[in-house]
């Protein structure tokens, strides 16, 4: 009861319209003051949250996206995508999900994926006649593939926290990730077929047209290929891939397209800093709130109650997933992993739940956290890109909440969706 009130209080505060970072930090600080008699750790926690080398991928990918946009590389890319998919319902929707999937293989972060693809795709989808709300929801949801398809920041953190194989987790994310992308594509086609009759569908591109279109976008297409290749060839790490991508975008825009001036480079850096500051301040606020919850032992108490209820593996998983879904409305993925995983690990071992399977379910749930209000990092990312009302973005993303819960249920019912690939790779 107290716990429900705790979350309801934060919900009310956020709905007054104050900046999210301020709401989370204020509420966390006030709770700390009320329960611990001090706010001493607030800036310690904030500093710890933003002084993380791995997070540099977010401003670097944002910078890359802005360079691609200012250099007009993306116009070619989307013209090509349009040519190739113009005969299909929701053609550009398919292209956008495909772009998210490819980008997810480069980036380990949902926000970086939504930021990069969103900045590029949303204006283009609107240009080709798609309803804005549809484009917002598609990219907000598509961006979450960033943490399910390897590499994945949250999987690394979960793996380290639980001593679970990071390689195994990465493998286990591939099939559910592609399944999720497939579900998004199917939804986007079905929905466009019904509601987007006005979006022109033209005749299928001839082979010559298709080849010409691909040739035109060759440089833009080569960017993810080079970045992926470099990463898997061992030239750079997943975080360095963001810098590699940014360098490639600069080279393509500067040397091939000759469409970018130094002023554009500077403006891209300014934009990347501004959006990163906004996102990181929210993450910092969420970590303050998470820190206080942990110190008050709230996750501990909830999990102890769940374990005491003795509801078996299925019951345990369903209740845990429901709990994480609720936490996901307010917290950020890193905080959720840190405050729930260590507490439930003993129960997982006791119930003999495969940690890789649980890890995949957890990550799908963390994807949900990115698009559920009031605190959903991908919602904010789309908001930062488009300045659309947040309600409009939430409504656009709502169908995907159900689709993701559906995929999570499938993985829960058939663990092999996740576990088959790592088992095959091990040769079991």
């Amino acid at each position, binding site marked *: 009861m107290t716990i429900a009130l705790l979350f309801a209080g934060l919900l009310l505060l956020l709905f007054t319209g104050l900046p999210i970072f301020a709401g989370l930090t204020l509420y966390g600080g006030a709770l700390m003051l009320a329960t611990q008699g001090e706010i001493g750790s607030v800036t310690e926690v904030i500093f710890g949250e933003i002084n993380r080398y791995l997070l540099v991928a977010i401003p670097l990918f944002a910078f890359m996206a802005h360079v691609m946009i200012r250099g007009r590389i993306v116009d070619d890319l989307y013209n090509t995508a349009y040519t190739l998919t113009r005969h299909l319902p929701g053609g550009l929707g398919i292209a956008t999900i495909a772009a998210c999937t490819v980008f997810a293989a480069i980036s380990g972060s949902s926000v970086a994926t939504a930021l990069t693809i969103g900045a590029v795709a949303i204006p283009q989808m609107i240009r080709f006649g798609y309803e804005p709300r549809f484009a917002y929801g598609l990219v907000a949801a598509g961006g979450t593939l960033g943490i399910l398809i390897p590499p994945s920041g949250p999987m690394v953190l979960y793996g380290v926290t639980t001593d679970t194989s990071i390689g195994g987790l990465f493998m286990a994310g591939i099939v559910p990730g592609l399944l999720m992308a497939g579900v998004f594509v199917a939804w986007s086609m079905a929905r466009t077929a019904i509601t987007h009759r006005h979006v022109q569908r033209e005749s299928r591109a001839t082979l010559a047209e298709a080849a010409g279109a691909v040739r035109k976008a060759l440089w833009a297409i080569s960017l993810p290929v080079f970045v992926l290749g470099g990463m898997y060839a061992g*030239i750079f790490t997943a975080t360095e891939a963001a810098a590699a991508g940014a360098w490639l975008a600069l080279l393509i825009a500067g040397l091939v397209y000759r469409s970018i001036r130094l002023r554009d480079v500077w403006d891209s850096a300014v934009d990347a800093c501004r959006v990163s500051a906004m996102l990181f301040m929210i993450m910092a606020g969420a970590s303050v709130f998470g820190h206080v919850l942990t110190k008050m032992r709230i996750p501990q108490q909830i999990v102890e109650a769940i374990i005491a209820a003795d509801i078996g593996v299925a019951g345990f998983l369903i209740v845990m997933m429901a709990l994480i879904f609720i936490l996901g409305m307010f917290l950020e993925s890193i905080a959720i992993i840190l405050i729930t995983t260590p507490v439930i690990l003993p129960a997982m071992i006791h119930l003999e739940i495969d940690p890789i399977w649980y890890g995949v379910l957890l990550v799908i749930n963390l994807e949900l956290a990115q698009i559920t209000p009031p605190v959903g990092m991908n919602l904010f990312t789309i908001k930062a890109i488009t300045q659309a009302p947040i309600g409009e973005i939430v409504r656009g993303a709502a169908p995907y909440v159900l689709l993701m819960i559906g995929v999570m249920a499938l993985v829960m019912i058939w663990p092999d969706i996740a576990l088959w690939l790592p088992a095959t790779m091990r040769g079991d």
Partner: protein
Amino acid sequence: ADHTMRISHQFPPTHHTAVSLAQFEKEVEAATQGKVDVQIFGAAQLFKPNQNHPAVASGKIEAAAILSFQWGGTIPEMSVTIIPYLMTSVAKQKAFIGSEASKLLDAKMEARGVKNIAWIVDTNDGIFTSAKKPLAAPADFSGLKIRGLNKLFDAGLEAMGASPSAMPGSEVYQALQTGVLDAGFTGVKAAYSRKFYEIQKYGVASNIILAFDNLVVNPAWWKGLPADVRNAIQAAADRAVQRSIRNTDGVPPEDVRILNDNGMQTIALTKAQEKAMADAMQPAVKKEFLRATAPDGVRLLELIDRL
């Protein structure tokens, strides 16, 4: 409960120190008839490893278990235990705990605002993992890109011609897998629990370093406890130390076997091979150590020599 003892640490719940601290919690609560409520926040859920020190010193929590070389440049003397092959034998390890040398380090921690009440042994071995060839002799390290341990230890790797990288721990697994790095270094048990056998073909284990997990407490809180409570906590901490001490020299054969069983060709170095490694690494590491710690470092090395 009259007193709360909140303990933060970074170890995953399966780590032996995490298990031992859970035991410590039970013992303290039983011995004080519930006068002390011990609350453990493991796996860095409350504070990151480098935040434990300021959190305890300022009283935001009462205690933390801190890996001895986590102190880094803040107390460089604490890294004396990772000078390769200096004090890893069972005899030295036992003699060190409670010795003048350990008291010197206790005083260093006290000067940084925390009181150490337990030298819990974390590990006295380490393993070099690699993809192309086993790293059993100094010459094998030449030209390798390797993730070492910290600035001090890496000085020894550089002395053997390797190129150490300071990449964040969370990136190491994938970097070893894709070949961004050629080799890694970790504890022998950790090589198994962190599944390094999935990505590395060779492992070379030896008693190369000693590491402790120091249980540190806030000095004011500690002083303010009634004597019987303080004694009960200290007694339980002492038992945690006893549980952690290794009683046989050498790398535990079962730790080596389980890596071999999982496909990583793992060997333990012979005494002669260890000596060759020590001769190659020690001078450079000692030099780096003394650069950061003289004059106390000189005295510390003398004290340890005499153990």
